[in-house]
């Protein structure tokens, strides 16, 4: 059997494009030290690098939450005074978190780490429920759904990173910190549109705030362990 070997013009173009793009990319990218590449034994990513990644992810999550909240408010919040309804009703409200710079400066690192990890844990479930509900709803905005999905994914990544940092910075026994449980699933999936919309508004509002907290706390921790 004779196999004909032909090269499409498309294939050669693609290859050319690949080579060129590779060259261009190589020009612009900084030179990273090859951390943990082909290195046996202990491989430690620098703490500063870990913190930088964590702050990036947290900052990105914060931006996504803000955009999601703004879009929902624009779509459904016109004329309705949701804010007054959702005041003081976040499920993470009862966590004692520092609310100004002095209080935060006085909070220990471990406490801050615990707070961050608790917050991230507590948002696992609500985000998952929100995504599920948005998928099932026909009239849901695709932008909101996409952002919710991304936040859900990135929150898990951030949690891993913060736990890794905590392990690096505070190697010791692990304590499983309790975290607030979210229990508004029934409101989120209610048939009554008002009830449902209020539930979503509350969720997005609380997520926005908690994302800001997480981002600020991680940055605080970063500036404590690395030069800012």
């Amino acid at each position: 059997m004779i196999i004909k070997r032909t090269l499409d013009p498309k294939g050669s173009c693609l290859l050319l494009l690949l080579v060129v793009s590779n060259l261009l990319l190589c020009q612009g990218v900084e030179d990273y030290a090859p951390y943990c590449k082909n290195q046996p034994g202990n491989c430690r990513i620098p703490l500063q690098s870990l913190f930088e990644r964590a702050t990036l992810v947290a900052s990105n999550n914060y931006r996504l939450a803000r955009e999601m909240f703004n879009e929902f408010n624009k779509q459904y919040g016109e004329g309705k005074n949701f804010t007054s309804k959702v005041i003081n009703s976040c499920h993470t409200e009862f966590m004692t978190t520092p609310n100004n710079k002095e209080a935060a400066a006085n909070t220990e690192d471990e406490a801050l780490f615990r707070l961050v990890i608790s917050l991230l844990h507590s948002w696992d479930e609500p985000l998952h429920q929100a995504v599920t509900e948005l998928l099932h709803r026909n009239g849901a905005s695709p932008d909101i759904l996409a952002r919710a999905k991304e936040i859900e994914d990135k929150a898990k990544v951030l949690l891993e990173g913060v736990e890794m940092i905590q392990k690096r910075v505070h190697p010791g026994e692990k304590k499983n910190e309790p975290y607030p449980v979210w229990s508004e699933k029934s409101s989120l999936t209610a048939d009554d549109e008002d009830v449902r919309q209020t539930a979503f508004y509350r969720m997005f509002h609380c997520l926005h705030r908690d994302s800001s907290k997480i981002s600020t706390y991680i940055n605080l921790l970063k500036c404590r362990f690395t030069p800012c």
Partner: protein
Amino acid sequence: MKENAASRVVFILLLFLNVSLLNGQSPPEKPKLVKCRSPGKETFTCWWEPGADGGLPTNYTLTYHKEGETLIHECPDYKTGGPNSCYFSKKHTSIWKMYVITVNAINQMGISSSDPLYVDVTYIVEPEPPANLTLELKHPEDRKPYLWIKWSPPTMTDVKSGWFIIQYEIRLKPEKATDWETHFTPKQTQLKIFNLYPGQKYLVQIRCKPDHGYWSEWSPESSIQIPNDFPVKDTSMWIFVAILSAVICLIMVWAVALKGYSMVTCILPPVPGPKIKGFDVHLLEKGKSEELLRALESQDFPPTSDCEDLLMEFIEVDDCEDQQLMPRPSKEHTEQGVKPMHLDLDSDSGRGSFDSPSLLSEKCDEPQAHPSKFHTPEGPEKLENPETNLTCLQAPQSTSGEGKIPYFLANGPKSSTWPFPQPPSLHSPRYSYHNIADVCELALGMAGTTATSLDQTDQHALKASKTIETGREGKATKQRESEGCSSKPDQDTVWPLPQDKTPLISAKPLEYVEIHKVSQDGVLALFPKQNEKFGAPEASKEYSKVSRVTDSNILVLVPDPQAQNLTLLEEPAKKAPPALP
């Protein structure tokens, strides 16, 4: 009494109201909270807009309560932020907590409260512009020169502890340019600018923004002058370009090597070979020439015989039936041997011209056998009238029993011919007769031929006839000598006439005339021919004067009273061309 007191109070109140209304005083209008801003997430200020004061001095108070608290507080500082403002210090500022703020306007008439404003300090951050903007030109060795821009974070922002997350934006432009060149830097407080134009003065501005909040105002412009000798060159870019093009060439060479032929055919398609339409090349390959030729033949090759029709004109020979005093429309073929009966047609003279009547004596079958005898050579026999271009021909005639037909040849483009008289002994009964002499007369008379020319031609013709004539009777010869153009009236004479087709033949028998002589004036003297004798012409009446010309070309001759008797002659109607040129 009590009722009186109550009513009095009411009355006074009403009076008071009336008085105030009359004065134009009213409770203050509702104030409006405009905005609240925090410069560094540590303090914040709120501003409001007062409404109409109702004509009375109005006090404004700001009250608030925090999320999760029920206690209502009043603004701690009305002054720091300016008029109509409330400044919240660090002590009174909590972030991630909602503030519900209300402004109240109070005057003597009443209190008006604004709509509550829900404020979370985290979201109302608007920093000051960055401070200490410095510009410096650097010329390091072995490296490119650059502009080094440095600045420091704005006041009231704690970036160092990490509490405030900040981003910067720098813009610069040459002084006279219109568009700014902007650079975005997260966190860092310095920037290096390369590729500046020497000799230009640059303006630089900077602003900042928290991770969530509002942009600050642009800082005041800083300027720096780039000296003229500022080097700008950079060779690393060219090295990169050279490497890239080398790589591209290598890839192309490789692609060509792999698929060279197909690419070449794509770019330069092969020129298609010649193709004969309807021709099957495979026939050639097989070597079957017969089929090949058959294929060729099937396409109208060789050409059919239609071409011949175009090349040649066929001559129609008719059977003594048609009268000929005019050229016939039949085709003439001068090449195929002159048949006795042919019609001389000018190529360009139509039938309508008198010039070229071809007086055709038609040919029957017999004379065809003797084409040579009857053939009249053109040259010497032709009597040509130089003016009218007429030709009289003398047809040689044989004295044999065959029907002799005078025939003639056209001498030139325009010629008419006169048939020569034929011997009467011809036994072909179907000859038609021409009154050719009349035509001659007409032609000559109208044209005004000179006698001399006619004489000469006459004699010449006579001579010529002698030479050609073979075995003719002497009488005929004589007659010719004397007559020239003559014709015989007899039916037995050999002048063929289209008896059948002569439409205008008169009832009278045709009479023929003979030219007796030509006087010196050029006048023809005609004698009617009344007998068959070929002898000497009788000196009978001589017609030499034209009386009139009737229609249809009938010339009426009268005897000249001076000279001879005249005879009325009627010419047979003919189809001769009516007009002389």
